[in-house]
């Protein structure tokens, strides 16, 4: 019985790879833009291929933006649902990744706006600074570098990087994550964030400069 179940799973995986569009080309060989057009025409298989290709990137981008895995997973689902809702309006005027991450960026921005509007009854404090003028009301929490270091000492490098990114203003964090962690070009990041290329480059440089003192402590422990 267990062997039969294993064989079924293996068959399903291989059959997915053999999925092809109506011209006989395997979906795995189609570009993202082509898959999105197929999806707009009603192909669920094309949508599934898109999800499998891009889900990890979107999840990690959102995770670095909101620093909470569960929220990141929920927002990732919203991103792909947005693809379904807007499928018929899709036009391949730019790279698909630009389109996809623009949707993701908008969803993250809405989440940030929701957090800012969240009634104080639900929020003890602004535990991280999105705006340099915010004052941390817990004056003796301990500096953020210590928080970051403590996280690293627990062996959670990824969380430590998150704690460091959390210190950045949102616009710097987004530019840095999209360019350096998601590998998008400056031109793509500029299109996604609706900012000039020079501004994007400046934000990435400033982000690295701000992160460096925190990261220096990690590296000393490595």
């Amino acid at each position: 019985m267990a062997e039969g179940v294993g064989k079924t799973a293996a068959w399903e995986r291989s059959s997915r790879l053999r999925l092809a569009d109506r011209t006989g080309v395997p979906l795995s060989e189609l570009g993202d833009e082509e898959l999105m057009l197929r999806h707009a025409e009603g192909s669920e298989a094309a949508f599934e291929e898109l999800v499998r290709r891009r889900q990890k990137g979107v999840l990690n981008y959102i995770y670095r933006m909101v620093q909470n895995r569960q929220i990141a997973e929920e927002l990732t689902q919203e991103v792909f649902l947005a693809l379904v809702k807007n499928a018929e309006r899709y036009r391949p005027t730019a790279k698909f990744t630009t389109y996809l991450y623009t949707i993701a960026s908008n969803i993250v921005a809405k989440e940030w706006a929701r957090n800012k509007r969240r009634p104080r009854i639900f929020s003890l404090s602004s535990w991280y600074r999105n705006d340099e003028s915010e004052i941390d009301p817990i004056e003796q929490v301990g500096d953020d570098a210590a928080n970051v270091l403590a996280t690293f000492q627990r062996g959670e490098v990824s969380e430590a990087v998150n704690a460091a990114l959390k210190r950045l203003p949102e616009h710097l964090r987004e530019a840095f994550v999209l360019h350096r962690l998601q590998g998008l070009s400056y031109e793509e990041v500029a299109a996604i964030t609706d900012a000039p290329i020079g501004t994007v480059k400046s934000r990435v440089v400033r982000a690295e400069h701000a992160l460096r003192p925190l990261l220096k402590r990690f590296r000393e422990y490595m």
Partner: protein
Amino acid sequence: MDRMRPHPGRSELFAYAEQLAAANPAIPAETARHIARCPACAAEVQRIRASLVFLESAPELTPSEEQTAQILAAARSERRTGGKASSAGIRFVVRTAKGIACAAAVFIMGAVSFRAVLIEQPAVHAASARAVLARPAVDNAPSPETIRKVSSDIRELATVLQEGNRPQSPAEWRSRRIALAVREDLAEASSALERNPGCERARRLITVNLARQADALKTLYVERTL
């Protein structure tokens, strides 16, 4: 002898550091010459490279098969319903908002009544009031055990909101996010207090908000299970 050009700006050094690792580097010759001769700029480039390498070495999240299946299922549902489910979500939001407004009204009424009692009877209770005010504020604060217990109740409520069937409507997703954010706030507040038990500001903030958050979460939980 070549006169060394002025030091490149931070952006230029960053671009140079990026190009070092690029597949097809496009390094300006003049910048490369300067960095080869300038220990300060060379050190800065190394620092930038070290930061970038470390950041990019952080492990990425890998989505689970379950999560992928949920996305595909939600997409199928969205195609079938075409957004009709949103009306159910709106109704849930309205119910939740009414519940929260009711809880907030009760709290405000209680606070107003308590204050009214204090104002109405100043002559009779002046002496005892002065005695109360004269005592150190810490005597009126709940004990650490009380704080831990209420905090634990809230964490349990927040956890309950996430158990069972995953929410199907945008409004339920939002309520869950609120609960997650509350839990995160509490975890950070507790950590702050653990690091510095004597921090009066932390204790005051926790005291003021803990009870409110417990009530609000209970309201959300009741609405969720209606």
